[in-house]
């Protein structure tokens, strides 16, 4: 599938949303999947930033590859036998919100909170993905169930994504400012979402 076709498919599938959290992301009118100055090289450079953020523990821990959430800066397996469950919000009796409430507490070992607390669907795992794999995954609407516009809105507006920059005590926030990350994401999309070569860092 060419990149253009992928982009079209992404737009077409835009309604099949399984977003990270409510409220549903709103499309960003600034994002147009067209070439920008610099083209693919600038897009790839922007993707470096995107990749660093998405694989940071604050993002990756709730985008795990397996059926267990991860936690803390060392991305250890979540304590208490907590599992993904069929709707990515925990299993019966041990839902995410059994412990995680709407806001953080002031101690690192109390469950942090946000108005919505959940895992990303397994198809959107960041854990263990190379830059190429992650770029391909983000470009595949069958996996993301989002258009690029919706992805941009997700990283820009979503409250649980935003928690990554205000995770409370004992957790490192995402080291890149959210605006910078969103700008990089947009730049990557605007450059027609170039895919890094195999073996690139």
């Amino acid at each position: 599938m060419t990149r253009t076709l992928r982009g079209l498919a992404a737009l077409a599938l835009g309604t099949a949303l399984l977003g990270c959290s409510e409220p549903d992301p709103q499309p960003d009118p600034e994002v147009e999947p067209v070439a920008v100055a610099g083209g693919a090289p600038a897009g790839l450079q922007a993707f470096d930033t995107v990749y660093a953020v998405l694989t940071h523990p604050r993002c990756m821990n709730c985008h795990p590859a397996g059926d267990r959430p991860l936690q803390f800066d060392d991305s250890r397996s979540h304590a208490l036998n907590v599992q993904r469950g069929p709707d990515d919000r925990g299993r019966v009796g041990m839902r995410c919100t059994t412990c995680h409430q709407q806001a953080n507490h002031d101690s690192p070992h109390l469950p942090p909170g946000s108005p919505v607390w959940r895992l990303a669907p397994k198809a959107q795992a960041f854990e263990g993905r190379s830059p190429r794999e992650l770029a391909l995954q983000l470009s595949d609407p069958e996996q993301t169930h989002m258009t690029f516009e919706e992805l941009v809105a997700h990283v820009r507006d979503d409250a649980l994504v935003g928690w990554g920059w205000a995770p409370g005590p004992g957790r490192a926030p995402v080291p890149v400012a959210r605006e910078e990350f969103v700008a990089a994401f947009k730049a990557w999309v605007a450059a027609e979402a170039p895919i890094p070569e195999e073996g690139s860092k």
Partner: protein
Amino acid sequence: MKTTRRGFLRGLLGGGALVLGAPLLGPVELFAQEGPAAEAWRASLWLAIAPDGAVTIVAHRSEMGTGIRTCLPAVLADELEADLGQVVIEQAPGDARYGSQNTDGSCSIVNFYETMREVGATARHMLEQAAAQTWGVPVGECRAREHAVHHAASERSLGFGALVAVAATLQAPDKGALRLKPRSEWRYVGKGFPTQDAATIARGEATFGADVRLTGMKFVTVARAPVLGAPLVRYDATATLEVPGVERVVELPGFKPPHLFQALGGVAVVASSTWAAIQGRRKLKVTWGESPNDGYDSQAFREQLLEAVRAPGQVLREAGDVAEGRAAAAKTFAAEYTTPLLAHAPMEPPCALAHVTEAGCEAWAPTQNPQAAQDTVAAALGLPKEQVTVHVTLLGGGFGRKSKPDYVAEAALVSRAIGAPAQVVWTREDDLRHDYYHAPAAMRFEGGLDEGGRLVSWQQRSAFSPITSTFAAGSTQPAPFEHMLGATDLPYAVPNLRIESCPAPAHVRIGWLRSVCNIWHVFGASSFLDEAAHAAGADPAEFLLQSLGEPRELELGAGVNYPNYNKPLADYPIDLGRLRGVVERVKARAWGRELPAGHGLGIAAHRSFHAYVAAVVEAAVDDRGRVRVPRVDLVVDLGLVINPDRVRAQMEGSIVFGLSLALHGEISVEQGRVVQSNFHDYAVQRIHEAPEIHVELVESDALPGGAGEPGVPPIAPALANAIFAACGQRLRDLPLQPEPRRG
């Protein structure tokens, strides 16, 4: 009878605190109460029967999950021929007339089974006598059965209630004249019966320590020194007093060494709710002074203990000549083992409510030892013990922690200061950081095998912070009761044997935790025996039986100070036939079965608290060194069993407790401060980690032994031995953490 504070403490040091429980009781105290016949007949301290037939039996031991609060009254009811369904169980406050109430050392049945039988039989005799007198027939023709006395010849019956007026006028029979029921007539003992509290617990209506409410009561948290013995220098409560609900702060005096069960001292935050008290304490700014324990580091201390056991110590027991034995051995080997500090972590943290008035102090607490609570509060307040009443609530777990009533003294001191009832609540952080810890220990073993693969030489040394340090400041020498717990009673038949103890100081409060020193002594000895089996190329279970030798009573040799859990060896010998028996049974049911790759079986056996336990643990170790325990089999012979279902429950619980300490438990200390603070860093087993459990009780007529603790000691070594069988790694330090597989 009365126990003075001085006498009480001497008892702790001499006989051993946890095993203090030899009944301080003289003959059964029985008295016929004078008064109008409409009132209940107070047949004994433990027993009252009302004219309507309602039987009230006092539970004088504390309920922390063993079922003892139902068990001892059921023994009495059985002997009385009372219907348990018409029995009300009443919890006794602290009262020295009951003898020891220190619910500790797995000795409630051991020490009070006979007493309960005698109380029940005495009252039964008097009811039969009352019926005989009423009917004008010989007492020999009257038999109590099912809550009534019957005269077969005339087919007459009178309910217990109808007999109390007459019974109350009679003289109690001599103890020697009592006829105890033969086993064939037992109704409850050995058969099983539900516990009194099961239904109220399931409805959420049971009263635990922090559930007691008094009008006008205040909720209290206490800021305590992070390092044992650090004095309070100053504090600033400005921000604390701004927290809504916080009413005042109270300075509590520090303790004077030895710390005993005294309140630690500090700054108490008094509030109108628990949450306000917790929040208020977080805002408190406290400066603590220097302590001699500032330099305590548990990692460095472990090395210090290992150094201690590399030098000769005090010889506790000796046979033959270990040096000659080793010299003549075909194969020699040595190993060192360590175990860390442990916290009790009962699900209910310590808490107590006290109300001090002109009349004295009344307290409500989840305490294993209400008389010690009376003593401690009396000493703290400068009151005579008689003016201190301690009511015992249900305990949300004890495991030894709640036999030390420091938290009750805190509540009393705060109540006196504020002139209102004060409920002191410990958070989990308080609990883990201010415990009476299970001591850290190191052991060194040196062994020798002959050509035939038999043990011919065994030397062991242990060093650990002694419990005596809690009662005598600076003590580095354990008491005989500490050695008794798995060291001096080493059961193996080795011709050349030496057991030594090496001194060690303490830098935190040391106490006793479920099965106490048995935990490290048996971890070391049973692991080393397994190492010997492998050195001999023998099957570990066969080697264990061979090393126990012929069925016989263990001879400790002359000069060994062995308190035998406060019972005469003549009544409660160390019976190696019974120990062999449980090994053979567990071997038959669990040993040598087919296992998946990466799984292994380990075995260990030990006698403690007059009970004989053998366990086979299955371990599974994966490539990352993660341990899973799919199944545990345990066989126990504790003599006469009163309530089999509760004994099974204790064994199930002991297995889980043993696995928690084997795989997770470790308190570490840096610069005198405990590092761990809550269950995220002091883990205990959870349901998804818990094994399939099979418990077998051996039927026995032997005198009843303890049930609460003896299941614990074999678990950790059986698991370590299973891990060796599973992956070839010999782990000699608790908690057990295999290395990931290389390559």
